[in-house]
């Protein structure tokens, strides 16, 4: 291995972005996760972004088969996986080719030279070997024959060639561990667990890991490794959690705090499937899951289970939400609580199914026939999925209504440290249970404050009643087609959702509380928006961030906040859907738009530049 052109110098840095890229089969997701987890346990804050291809296993070495995992680790709180890559680990030419543009000049690239053979270069559409052409002159390129070294280090274990080669990701991970002074023990424990019983594999992986570590240490060429001090985070006990797991756990907590067992009726779809999988695996907590024949059956079973008194959930992504529209209308009319999770991905149609986007907001708000308002909330980060799943459940059952929870592929697959919540510290959820006496009770008798009707379950003697999709008479719930009653009921359903604003927290603005520019966002872009806003705020700009977790209804103080700023910019990973909503709710304000529709998150850089431009009146 040779160090090229530029000197690599270690030292202490604030935060670093590392991206592991290789073939789908190269284990990059695992490598990235191990690096992230280890860093988190060392007290760094982290934010991750897995970016995998839509093919299951694309042909080896191909460009569309490249799978990547990016993590930012910092000693200050980090809110995004980072814009630009400080260290790129590229296991083959295709991985280098497709990721090079994210690496700024002067940064480090580690490559497995063994993979830069003619076949792979061709597949990556390189005419010549980029390691030889000089096109990488401006980077610190660390060329290591990783495959060979891996094989050598484990040659005597008795594995075949293919199996040996599979450990090369551990070798690469070892090198990176050394660069950032990470201990190996977490990953070693992980290996023990993962390969339990398969002693050869345990031995091979551990040895490869250590070999990489040692290799990095012993070769002179890396003069010194980077150090990242632990982040200043809230004291507490943490774990690394992905958004989908956090969503599942949030539901488990809501079930516990409401006393209502979970029923999840879903049909698998990327990137939402893990929620179904996680709750199925955790069946022992009493969560009932049901893999239905399609999305419509998924939500229909949830509606049935809600009628039977369960915390009823259905999880999906955009195309599935489209299919559920009619059934959501039934839940609106029957005023039954259900939570619909939409882990958004890039559309329209099948689109870019593994890439994140925020383009289902309008569908969530308006994608049903008739006047059928529902609560819409969104999670802003992987760990926040826990909170918002909890909140969605709470609001559904306290207000007897469907709630749509929007997350996206970015935060669903990404992970970050979660300061673990004890269930006893979570608020109690009060489903709007039967409280009337038999005499006063009617199926559509409403709570005077929330307008929620009471949730009366089959099996309760004396309260037998029927619900359904035909318009209901106010109070009795009988089928009724009278004009006045219809108008009244349409208004009551709207007002019921409107009053939810009395039961959600006020909007908290980050950065300046008043001033020149209010950045407005929602959902999974929080990390990037916050980082950019905070950066400018700390550098003295009067810039604030209003980030929506509650989209319908919006917090009560929303307009109050708008009044305190001069300019507004709405930033979204779509063509301007919150912009449409804000214009319809607060048309008095003039909003700039900043939109990106690339199946990728915002970079902090592009945001900062845009904000500066507006602040400087350009």
């Amino acid at each position: 291995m040779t160090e090229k052109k530029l000197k690599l110098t270690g030292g202490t840095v604030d935060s670093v972005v590392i991206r592991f890229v290789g073939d789908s089969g190269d284990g990059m997701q695992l490598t990235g996760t191990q690096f992230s987890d280890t860093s988190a346990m060392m007290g760094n804050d982290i934010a991750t972004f897995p970016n995998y291809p839509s093919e299951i296993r694309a042909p080896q070495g191909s460009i569309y088969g490249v799978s990547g995992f990016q993590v930012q680790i910092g000693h200050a709180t980090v809110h995004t996986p980072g814009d630009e890559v400080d260290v790129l680990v590229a296991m083959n030419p295709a991985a280098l080719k497709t990721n090079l543009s994210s690496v700024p000049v002067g940064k480090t690239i580690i490559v497995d030279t063994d993979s830069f053979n003619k076949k792979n270069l061709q597949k990556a559409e390189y005419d010549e070997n980029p390691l030889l052409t000089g096109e990488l002159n401006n980077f610190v390129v660390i060329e290591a024959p990783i495959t060979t070294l891996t094989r050598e280090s484990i040659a005597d274990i008795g594995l075949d060639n293919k199996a040996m080669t599979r450990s090369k990701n551990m070798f690469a991970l070892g090198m990176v561990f050394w660069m950032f002074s990470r201990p190996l023990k977490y990953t070693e424990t992980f290996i023990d667990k993962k390969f339990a019983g398969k002693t050869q594999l345990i031995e091979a992986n551990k040895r490869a890991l250590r070999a990489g570590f040692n290799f990095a240490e012993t070769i002179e060429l890396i003069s010194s490794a980077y150090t990242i001090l632990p982040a200043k985070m809230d004291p507490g006990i943490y774990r690394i959690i992905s958004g989908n797991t956090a969503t599942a756990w949030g539901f488990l907590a809501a079930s516990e705090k409401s006393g209502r067992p979970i029923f999840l009726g879903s049909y698998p779809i990327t990137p939402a499937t893990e929620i179904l999988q996680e709750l199925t695996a955790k069946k022992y907590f009493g969560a009932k899951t049901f893999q239905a024949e399609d999305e419509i059956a998924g939500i229909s079973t949830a509606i049935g289970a809600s009628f039977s008194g369960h915390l009823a959930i259905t999880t999906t992504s955009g195309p599935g939400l489209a299919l559920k529209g009619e059934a959501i209308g039934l839940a609106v009319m029957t005023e039954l609580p259900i939570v619909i999770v939409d882990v958004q991905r890039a559309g329209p149609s099948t689109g870019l199914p593994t890439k994140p986007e925020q383009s289902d907001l309008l569908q969530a708000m308006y994608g049903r026939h008739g006047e059928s308002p529902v609560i819409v909330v969104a999670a802003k980060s992987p760990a926040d999925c826990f909170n918002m799943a909890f909140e969605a459940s709470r609001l559904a059952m306290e207000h007897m209504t469907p709630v749509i929870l929007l997350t996206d592929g970015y935060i669903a697959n990404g992970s970050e440290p979660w300061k673990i919540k004890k269930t006893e510290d979570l608020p109690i959820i009060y489903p709007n249970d039967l409280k009337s006496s038999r005499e006063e009770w009617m199926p559509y008798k409403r709570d005077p404050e929330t307008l929620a009707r009471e949730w009366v379950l089959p099996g309760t003697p004396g309260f037998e009643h029927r619900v359904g999709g035909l318009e209901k008479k106010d109070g009795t719930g009988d089928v009724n087609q009278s004009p006045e009653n219809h108008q009244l009921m349409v208004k009551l359903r709207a007002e019921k959702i409107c009053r939810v604003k009395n039961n959600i927290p006020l909007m908290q603005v980050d950065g300046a509380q008043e001033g020149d520019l209010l950045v407005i966002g929602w959902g999974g872009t929080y990390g990037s928006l916050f980082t950019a806003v905070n950066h400018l705020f700390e550098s003295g700009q009067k810039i604030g961030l209003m980030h929506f977790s509650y989209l319908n209804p919006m917090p009560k103080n929303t307009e109050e906040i708008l009044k305190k700023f001069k300019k507004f910019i709405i930033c979204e990973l779509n063509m301007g859907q919150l912009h449409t909503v804000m214009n319809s709710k607060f048309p008095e304000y003039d909003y700039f738009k900043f939109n990106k529709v690339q199946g990728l998150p915002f970079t902090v850089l592009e945001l900062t530049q845009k904000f500066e431009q507006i602040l400087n009146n350009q």
Partner: protein
Amino acid sequence: MSEQTNPVLTFKDFQSDQEVRWCPGCDDYIILRAMLKALPEMGRKKEDFVFVSGIGCSSRFPYYVGTYGIHGIHGRAAAIATGVKLANPELSVWVMTGDGDAMAIGGNHFIHLIRRNINIKIVMFNNEIYGLTKGQFSPTSLIGQKTYTSPYGNIQPPFNPGQLTIGSSGKYFARVPGNDPKMMEELFVKAEKFKGTASIEVLQNCVIFNDGAFEEITNKETESENQIRIEHGKKMIFGKNKDKGLILKGFKLEVVNIGENGITEDDILVHDAHEADPTLHLMLVRLQNPVVMGEIRRIEETSYDEVYVERMESVAKKSPFKNLDEMFFSGDTYVVE
């Protein structure tokens, strides 16, 4: 919420306070009466019944029964009922549906419910027409049938609901004429006791848009010649004079006259509704002349909901965690001070 005998309940107890709104003369009234009479006989509490439907004339049914009920959306009754039942397996859950609701838009949920064998009863009002939308052909309409969407005669070959049930690996299928409240009543009570998905086809006359569709079969004059009513363990004999029966010839059922060509009652096939192999049942559901009524197939196995509950319990027993907190704090956690 478990089963009990409740001798107090009567027909009246199961009536709802809603006025029944079908066309005068519609068989749906007969089905409703039969159900209201059957319900008290099932020996269960009133509050433990849930009637679920989709959309259609037939799907108005739940409004008229004074139990719990859901009038859902078109085609989704089977799925809604699945949720009701899995959430609370103690309930007696009934899907009341039409040929369109169950087999046109709802076809997928219908076959999947049957495949899963969840303990839910499906009563399909087969009138071979879309009633509520005023007369379009349905998936059971006959070739040549003239309707508003087949003014030149229908050209889509129909499903046979029994055959579709068997095709979906169904464990229970019964057929009953819509003008025979007695037989319906008995059948509903029997079906309630069956642990699994029961698929019941009612040949229901729609007086407005498809009047007389089953006239030949259900007409009181000729029914004994055109219907065969079968019972498990009994010989498959029919005819006004009980002089006809079914025998097997190669791969096919044949109608024979007892007493002719040396055929005696002994030659007549005994109905075996409990045979897991569906061969005979397929023959019976397909028979056109006579049309077979009664429990054609009834294979008692563990139902999905039972397995589901067992699985929940067995997994819970092996739970690695005492409670949620334990899971939250398990594995790779770390402390920030």
